[in-house]
């Protein structure tokens, strides 16, 4: 279980409070107006931002002071998820070990992951030789080999077209099901949230609220969400 115990995260302009729990294996959408602090919440969980008070716990371990690489978290950002000067396979390989020279066994793992996301034989290509959707798949393949407990998505598919985005979300849903990964996903689009997550966390007015059922939330939206949805 991921637990944020009365956390406050201070970003230069505002403070976000969070006191909530997310069950293992859950798929949770994070909804809220822009600028409300959805990304800040993910960054705090990933370790890119200090919490000024409170604790972050995963299962029995305290993550509050752990460095980002030491938390069992894989994160995909809005952009810049791949290193442009490395091949797709090298990019995926970095999920195993911070090196560009992998052992044979590790290379096999990378190839399997690339095949799983639908990119067999694309390992030698550089990101610039891949389409936007293919780049997202490489980043997902890396998250796959990382074998982390939690996957955080900070709108990595925002730049893709609607059909492609749906395709990627379905792939994500499949992968997290297979690996029993806990998924937290920032979303602007209620449809995305409905599509793959049963639960949703509303971030509004400086607070990340405890997760509720996505359908319940949309059926009876609080004022902040109502304004946002229009």
């Amino acid at each position: 279980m991921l637990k944020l115990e009365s956390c406050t995260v201070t970003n230069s302009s505002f403070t976000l409070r969070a006191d909530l729990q997310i069950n293992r294996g859950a798929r949770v959408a994070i909804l809220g107006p822009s600028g409300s602090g959805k990304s800040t919440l993910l960054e705090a969980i990933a370790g890119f931002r200090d919490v000024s008070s409170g604790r972050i716990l995963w299962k029995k371990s305290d993550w509050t002071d752990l460095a980002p690489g030491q938390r069992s978290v894989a994160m995909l950002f809005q952009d810049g998820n791949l290193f442009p000067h490395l091949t797709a396979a090298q990019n995926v390989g970095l999920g195993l070990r911070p090196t560009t020279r992998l052992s044979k066994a590790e290379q096999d793992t990378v190839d399997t992951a690339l095949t799983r996301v639908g990119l067999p034989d694309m390992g030698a290509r550089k990101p610039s030789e891949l389409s936007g959707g293919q780049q997202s798949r490489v980043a997902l393949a890396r998250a796959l080999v990382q074998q982390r407990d939690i996957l955080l998505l900070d709108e990595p598919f925002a730049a893709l077209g609607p059909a492609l985005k749906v395709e990627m979300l379905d792939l994500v849903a499949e992968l997290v099901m297979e690996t029993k990964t806990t998924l937290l996903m920032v979303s602007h689009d209620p449809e995305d949230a409905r599509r793959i997550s049963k639960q949703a966390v509303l971030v509004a007015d400086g607070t990340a609220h405890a997760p509720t059922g996505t359908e319940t939330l949309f059926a009876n939206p609080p004022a902040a969400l109502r304004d946002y949805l229009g």
Partner: protein
Amino acid sequence: MADRAQPLSAWPGRTAAIGVAVLILGTLCAVALRAEAGRGLGPSDWAALRFTVLQATISAVLSVALAVPVARALARRRFPGRRILIALLGAPFILPVIVAILGLLQIFGRSGWVSQVFLSLGLPPLQIYGLHGVVLAHVFFNLPLATRLILQSWQEIPAEQFRLAAQLNLGASAMFRLIEWPVLRHSCPGALAVVFAICLTSFAVALTLGGGPRATTIELAIFQAFRFDYDLGRAALLSGVQLILTAGAALLALRLSRGGGIGTGLDRSLKRWDSHHISAKLADVAWIMLAALFLLMPLSAITLSGVAGLLSLPDAVLSATLISMAVALASTAILLALALPMAAAVALGRGAMIEMSGILGLAASPLVIGTGLFIVLRPVADPFAWALPVTALVNAVMALPFALRILVPQARAVVTRYSRLSLSLDMTGWQFTTIVLLPRMRAQISFAAGLAAALSMGDLGVIALFADPDIATLPLQIYRLMGAYRMQDAAAAALLLLILSMGLFWLLDRGGRHHAET
């Protein structure tokens, strides 16, 4: 940003910055302690001070005054070769001073091309030595720089303003008053200050074209006090004066100028509607031709006169060539070892002090550092035995401000863009450096390395201070050949130096770009 995690530590950069500051300020202290302030400045010292300021002022005013029409012509004309010409304006920056001086001598010297024409017309030959020779060489080096600085701000005038001016049917004078003058008023003081500061520390030009009681710069006076009179106290005192002067000028230049000069993006030409007058066209063509001739003739002269002797160079030149290559490569390595960690630390946002220490190199004069190192080394070692390592080190420190200006923006971009991803993959320190930072900065690193190698290759400064008769870098060897009136050999060696400097720059710069993708 309240981000706490960083993929790199800033301490190697801090250490490098402290090392540079200690070198520059430490040698300064050594000099200051030696200086006999009580003795004060003698008449010849005052003369040197006056001459230094006078020649720098005239050089700056002339360079900028000539740069304005050239920049204007380049800004509003499109012609084949325009890009090459603008790129060429960057070349004097890495052109060895001694090569340019030899070239200028062959054009404007007593028996140069221009004097030949004068003689055939029954006029006396040109006299290049003295104030006007020094100014001529300085204008040769700084006219291109001033042109680039002014051209850059000219290109920043939004195209909409020219469109609007065309709509309002503004004439040439209204155009100048309303649009061009405000830009010039903004950019000229900066260009003046930069050129003035550069000319203050001029050594090689004054050494070859100046000299004598009426044309000695402070930098040259330090050299003479040191080399001829072995008067360390006086050398130190002059170093102190020089330092106050250069630090003041460098501060002024930094305040008045806003970067640029070695940047790119100068090859855009604006569409304008006010320049179709035949007189404007003719004037622009004339200015561009004159500037191109002034820059290209001395280099052509060197090439023509040097090529014959290139295959029969004296042995002394060949050994000096090897020494110069070694010094240049060592200097490049030192530069990168200092500049890369410093750029990374600045990119991490821990940079104010580090950037200051990088800028110190702009205010410091190589001869002052050299004098200080001599004073520091003398009790523990034979300073003359250290001539080459000291030269490589001082050259690296002098190239540092430029290298930082090239490296820091990209280092910043890499850290901003990739530090979160790297951290989430647990890549820090050495791994982040080798897998992410260095590969992403390859083009900038090669550019900085090319610059450092070429600058060091062509430098005639500290080495003149330290070298004994048996040892010389190529520029010093050329200077000695000139002193012995062996002008054929000097020209051939100068051509070799020109080829090597430019070649080294090209090789390093291109080599790095070759495989750099995306």
